[in-house]
């Protein structure tokens, strides 16, 4: 069960610059470590993060093994209209976690 914490302002003025913060629970296993028995632990990281605002992709990031567990990503955008801001994280196993937040633009 994966959990994410999203920080999107509930309300903003049209044209205002807003900051968006997203953190997800993930081990971000680098693939460089070995277990107690000496065998390699398979790499499992989130390799891509995307954010959609009202259906359009506004931010995307590729992630690499040096990024810590529970990656935290903050970025800014311009509030244009009310709608859903959707987030998607995809990991090496092909799992995609999604969550959305609503913003009201006045």
């Amino acid at each position, binding site marked *: *069960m994966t*959990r*994410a*914490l*999203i*920080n999107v302002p509930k309300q903003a003025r049209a044209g205002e610059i807003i900051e968006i*913060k997203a*953190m*997800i*629970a993930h081990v*971000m296993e680098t693939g460089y470590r070995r277990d107690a028995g000496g065998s390699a632990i398979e790499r499992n990281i989130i390799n891509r993060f995307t954010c959609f605002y009202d259906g359009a992709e506004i931010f995307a990031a590729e992630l690499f093994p040096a990024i*810590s*567990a*529970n990656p*935290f990503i903050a970025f800014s955008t311009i509030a244009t209209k009310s709608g859903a801001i959707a987030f998607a994280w995809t990991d090496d196993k092909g799992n995609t976690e999604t969550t959305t937040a609503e913003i009201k633009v006045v």
Partner: protein
Amino acid sequence: MGWRLPLLAAAALLLSGGFLQADEKKSGFDFMAPETQAMQEDDLSNPGMLSIAEGEALWQARDNPHRAACAQCHGEARQSMRGAAMRYPQIDKRSGQLIDLQGRINLCRQEKQSAPPFAFESPALLALTAYVAHQSRGQVIAPSQDAKLDRHRQNGQALFERRLGQLGLSCAACHDAFPGQRLGGSIIPQAHPTAYPLYRLEWQALGSLQRRLRNCMIGMRAEPFPYGAQELIELEAYLMSRAKGLKIETPGVRP
């Protein structure tokens, strides 16, 4: 006679340690960089909050129809678990054993839910312990007056002051004698367990006070006590009484 002065100063420091007044006591939080403090303060950037959400789900979870969920007996954790973190470690009335909060959760699982105990440092045990302790956040630590705890606290204090390991260090040799100074690159805090289970950036995960204590013992090049050992819980009991007057911060963030 030049050597005497620093020696006397060191002796004075050693004597003054352990008897800090309430206003001299500082949480590990106060020794952190402003960036790390900000991370802990904001619930949407504190990675420990991911485990709190997980713990809340576990509190409500009824994965087995024959098993009651925590919430079915205890109700809303917000009310029933407020202040619980400060009552531990305590004596379990049935067995007479000294137990800490995670020990209580595992006992409850075995006795009331007929479920296997969670493994030490498993994400589930840490999440549930953090969720329960989180309900006391902001409350001032007021250790129990139970006289039966005195013996355990004394044992804990003796262990705190006992020199162990190849380096001949005790907990007190750093945390009572030189708090605020540096060991290597790290600031030595006063060793108050106000924020456990906490998210340590070095661990990239939540960890218990026992994990922290074992880490310190490994650093002292001593053989660490195993998880769940009576010695570790007695040390926890002493540290909680020593932290009297400070506020619970769970889930804390530490470097």
